[in-house]
C-alpha cells in the first residue's frame, strides 16, 4: 500500500480561505498591501497555480539539490581552479555576488508578503514555498561568495553592497524595493515572479551559467544552475495573477508589466550587458548581449504577454534602439568611474575585441570608438590619471543610472539627451523618455533624491571625490581598477594620438 496521490487530497491544502466575522476583510487584506483594485474580491477564488507541489515533495527534492550543490563546491574547494580564472570573469562573478545575493533576500521578503497578503489560500501556500526558495538562493550565493573573501577583498561586497550608498546599489534598491518588497501583492506577483523571474533572470542565470562553464568556473555554474531549477516552481505565481488582473483591469495589467519590464531592462543593461560583451574573454563568448536579449526576452517574453492578451509596451522602439547603446554606454561609465565599484572592470577594447563588437553592433565604432581611442591614447602616453573621474555623472531621476544614452540625430550624429520635467518647483532629469514617463505616473512613490541631489544638497562631505567614495562605502582595498591596461591598449602603441589630456601644469597655462 502506498500513500495517496497528491491529486486526491491537495485541494484541502489549497482550500483555506474563509469569510471573516470578527474583523473586516479590508482590514486583513488592506488595499495597498493586497491590491485587488477593480478586481472583484471573489474573482480571486479562481486563482490556480499550474505547477503543484506539496510540503513533503518540496523538502525531499530540495534536500537532494542542496546536497548536490554543496558536494560539488566541497570537491572544487580543494582544487586551485579559482586562481586560474580570468580577471574579467572574476569581475563578472563579483558583480553577480554583490549585485544578486541580497536581491534574493529581497525576493524572500516579497514572497513573505504574498504569503501573508495574497488573495487566495493556494497563492499564499505557493508563496510560502517561494520564500523558502528565495532564502535558499540568498544563502547559497552568500556562502559561495564568502569563500573568496580571503583571496580578494572585493568579494566582501557579496554581503556589503546593498548596505552602502554606492550608486549601483542605490539604483538597484530603487528598482527592487519598488517591484519586490513594497508593492501590493498583485503588482508584486506580476513584477517579481512574472516579469523578473520568467523573463529577466534567464539573462543572468542561463547566459552566465554558459559563460561560467566556458570560463572554467564549474563551481559558479553549479551554483547558478542549481538556483535556476527552483524558478519554475515559484515563478508560477505570476501567470494566474496576471490572468485575473487582465480579465478585470487590463489597463493596470499593461502598466504593471511595462513599468517592471523597463526597470529590469535598465538594470540588466548595467549588470549583464558589460559582463557578457566585455568581461567574458572573447574566446568564451557564445552570444552577444543583444543576441541573448533577442532570444530570451524579445521573442519569449513578448510572446508570453501577448498570450495573456496584452500589447507590446508603448516604449518598444526606444527599448529596441537601446539594445545597441545602453549597455555600451553603461560599460564605459562603469569603467571610467571604476573607483566607485567593487570589481575590476576590464575595458575589453583590444583590436580583436573591437572587431567582435563591430560585427555584433554595426554602430559601435561610430558611437563609442572615438571615446575609447582618447582613453587608449592617454593610457599609452602614460597618463592614466586623465582617465580617472574628478566628478560625478548626471544620474537619472527614475532608474538612478548615469544619464548616458546616445540617440541618433537626423544629421546622423549621436548625442546623449536630457529628458527633463518640471514638477513641484524642481527640474528632474531622465536618461530616456520612458524613464520620464514612468516617473510621472509613479511619482508619489519614486520621487526621491539621487546621489547627485544628495551631493548638491551638501549631504555628502567633503564635496569632492574622496567624500563621494567615503559616502559610497568604498575602501581603498576594494575600489575597482582595470586589471590589465596593457591587454587592450598594447595593440595601439605607437600610433599617432589625438585628444591627449595635458599634464596639469600645462593645462593651467593654456
Amino acid at each position, binding site marked *: 500500500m502506498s500513500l495517496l496521490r497528491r491529486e486526491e487530497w491537495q485541494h484541502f*491544502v489549497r482550500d483555506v480561505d474563509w469569510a471573516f466575522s470578527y474583523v473586516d476583510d479590508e482590514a486583513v487584506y488592506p488595499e495597498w498591501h493586497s491590491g485587488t483594485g477593480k478586481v472583484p474580491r471573489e474573482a480571486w477564488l479562481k486563482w490556480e497555480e499550474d505547477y503543484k507541489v506539496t510540503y513533503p515533495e518540496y523538502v525531499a527534492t530540495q534536500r537532494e539539490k542542496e*546536497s548536490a550543490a554543496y558536494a560539488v563546491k566541497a570537491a572544487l574547494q580543494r582544487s586551485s581552479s579559482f586562481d586560474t580564472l580570468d580577471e574579467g570573469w572574476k569581475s563578472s562573478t563579483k558583480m553577480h555576488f554583490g549585485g544578486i545575493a*541580497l536581491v534574493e*533576500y529581497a525576493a524572500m521578503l516579497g514572497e513573505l508578503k504574498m504569503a501573508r497578503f495574497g488573495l487566495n489560500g493556494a497563492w499564499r501556500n505557493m508563496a510560502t514555498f517561494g520564500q*523558502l526558495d528565495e532564502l535558499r538562493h540568498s544563502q547559497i550565493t552568500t556562502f559561495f561568495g564568502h569563500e573568496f573573501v*580571503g583571496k580578494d*577583498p572585493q568579494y566582501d561586497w557579496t554581503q556589503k553592497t546593498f548596505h552602502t550608498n554606492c550608486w549601483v546599489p542605490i539604483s538597484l534598491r530603487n528598482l527592487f*524595493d519598488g517591484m519586490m518588497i513594497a508593492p501590493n501583492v498583485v503588482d508584486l506577483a506580476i513584477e517579481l515572479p512574472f516579469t523578473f523571474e520568467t523573463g529577466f533572470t534567464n539573462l543572468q542565470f542561463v547566459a552566465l551559467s554558459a559563460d561560467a562553464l566556458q570560463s572554467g568556473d564549474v563551481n559558479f555554474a553549479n551554483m547558478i544552475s542549481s538556483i535556476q531549477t527552483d524558478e519554475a516552481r515559484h515563478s508560477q505565481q505570476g501567470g494566474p495573477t496576471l490572468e485575473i488582473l487582465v480579465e478585470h483591469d487590463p489597463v493596470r495589467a499593461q502598466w504593471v508589466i511595462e513599468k517592471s519590464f523597463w526597470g529590469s531592462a535598465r538594470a540588466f543593461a548595467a549588470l549583464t550587458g558589460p559582463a557578457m560583451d566585455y568581461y567574458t574573454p572573447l574566446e568564451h563568448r557564445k552570444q552577444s548581449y543583444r543576441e541573448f536579449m533577442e532570444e530570451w526576452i524579445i521573442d519569449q517574453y513578448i510572446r508570453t504577454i501577448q498570450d495573456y492578451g496584452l500589447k507590446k509596451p508603448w516604449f518598444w522602439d526606444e527599448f529596441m534602439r537601446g539594445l545597441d547603446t545602453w549597455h555600451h554606454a553603461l560599460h564605459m561609465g562603469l569603467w571610467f568611474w571604476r573607483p566607485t565599484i567593487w570589481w575590476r572592470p576590464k575595458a575589453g577594447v583590444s583590436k580583436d575585441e573591437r572587431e567582435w563588437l563591430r560585427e555584433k553592433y554595426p554602430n559601435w565604432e561610430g558611437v563609442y570608438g572615438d571615446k575609447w581611442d582618447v582613453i587608449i591614447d592617454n593610457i599609452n602616453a602614460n597618463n592614466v590619471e586623465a582617465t580617472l573621474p574628478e566628478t560625478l555623472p548626471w544620474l537619472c531621476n527614475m532608474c538612478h543610472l548615469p544619464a548616458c544614452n546616445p540617440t541618433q540625430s537626423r544629421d546622423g550624429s549621436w548625442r546623449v539627451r536630457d529628458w527633463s520635467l518640471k514638477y513641484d518647483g524642481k527640474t528632474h532629469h531622465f536618461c530616456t523618455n520612458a524613464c520620464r514617463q514612468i516617473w510621472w505616473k509613479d511619482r508619489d512613490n519614486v520621487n*526621491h533624491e539621487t546621489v547627485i541631489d544628495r551631493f548638491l544638497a551638501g549631504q555628502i562631505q567633503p564635496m569632492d571625490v574622496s567624500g563621494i567614495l567615503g559616502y559610497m562605502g568604498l575602501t581603498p582595498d576594494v575600489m575597482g581598477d582595470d586589471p590589465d591596461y596593457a591587454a587592450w591598449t598594447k595593440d595601439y602603441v605607437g600610433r599617432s594620438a589625438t585628444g591627449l589630456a595635458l599634464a596639469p601644469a600645462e593645462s593651467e597655462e593654456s
Partner: protein
Amino acid sequence: MTVPAKKPRPRRTFSAFGDVRRMPSEYEVMTHAQNWTTRSNRLAAFEQNPSSPANLWFLTYRENSPLQAEDWEQFRDPDSLTYRAYVSMQADAEAKTGGVLEEYAEAEADRALLPGQLALLRCLYTPSRYLVHGCQQIEAYVGYMAPTSYITNAAGFAAADFLRRVTLTAYRTRELQLAHPDSGIGESERRIWETDGSWQPARRAIEKALIAYDWGEAFTALNLVLAPTLDDVLIRQFREVSRDNGDQLSWLLASFLQADSDRRNRWSAALVSFCVEQQPGNEEALRRWIRRWTPIADEAAAGLGGLLQTRPERGHDASQVAAGARAAREAFHARVFEGLR
C-alpha cells in the same frame, strides 16, 4: 585622483562582522544582515519617497514599534537553522511521517476508530487547518516585517512548518473521508470553523491577530500567546485524548508536529531574552501585549476544550483542558522571563 595601493592583510570573513577573533559560523555567514531595508544610516526602509505608503507602514509598525534594540543583528536562533539544515531535517521528518501513514493505511486503522474519536477528528482535528493557515499567514507577516534577517529566517521556517501541519491535516482529511464517506469529513470543515460555537473564540483570536500589525505585537500574539496555548490543546492534549481513545495514528502524528512547536518556542524565547537584554523597556511592552492577548487565548482554549470533553468516548474535562493550556503557556512564559533575572 589616484587609486591607492591594495591593503595586504587578507580578510577572514565579511567586514560586517567587524574585527572578530572568532570565525563566524556557517549559519551566521548565511544569515547576517541580509535584509537591506534594515541597513544602518538609512533615511527610510525603502529607496523611495520617504512618505511612500510602504515607507510609512514600515516606519509605523517596525521602526516605531515599542520593541526597540540597539543592534538587532546580534540576535541568534538557538537552533542556528539554515535553509540546507531545514530541508534536510524536515525531509527526514516527512519520510518518517510518510512511513507511519503507509503502515496505518495498510492496517486500515481508520476503519477501527471509535465513533466518538471519529467525531473528535471531524469537529476538532480536520477543521483546524483553517486556524493553522491563519497562523502561517501571521508568521509570514512577522518574517516580512522583522527588524533583522536573523528573525525573518526563523519566522520563515516557522511559517513553512505551519504549512507542513496544514498539509498533514489535509492528507488525513482525505484518508478519513475515504474510510468514512458518510461522516461529513472533507465537507463540513469550513462550516464547522465558521459556525460551530466551540471554534468561534479561536477564530476570533486568529482573525484579530491577523490585524495586529505592529511586528512586535504580531510576534507576541502568535508566538508567545496564541500558538503556545492552542498548540497545547490541539497537539499535546489532542494527542493524549487520541491515545486514551485508541487512535494511535493521531497520537503519533501529533507527537511528530511537537518538534516544530518546540523549535518555534526556542527561538521565540531567545528573542524575548534578547529584547529585554537590549532594552529593559521592552519587557513592559511584551508583558502589555501578553496581557492583551491572554484572555483571548484562554477563551479559545476553553471553546476547544468542550470538544475534547464531549466528543470522544473517553474525553478530558473541558475546564481541565483550558487549565492545562493556560498552565503550559504560563510555564513557557516563566521560562522565557525567568532567564532574564
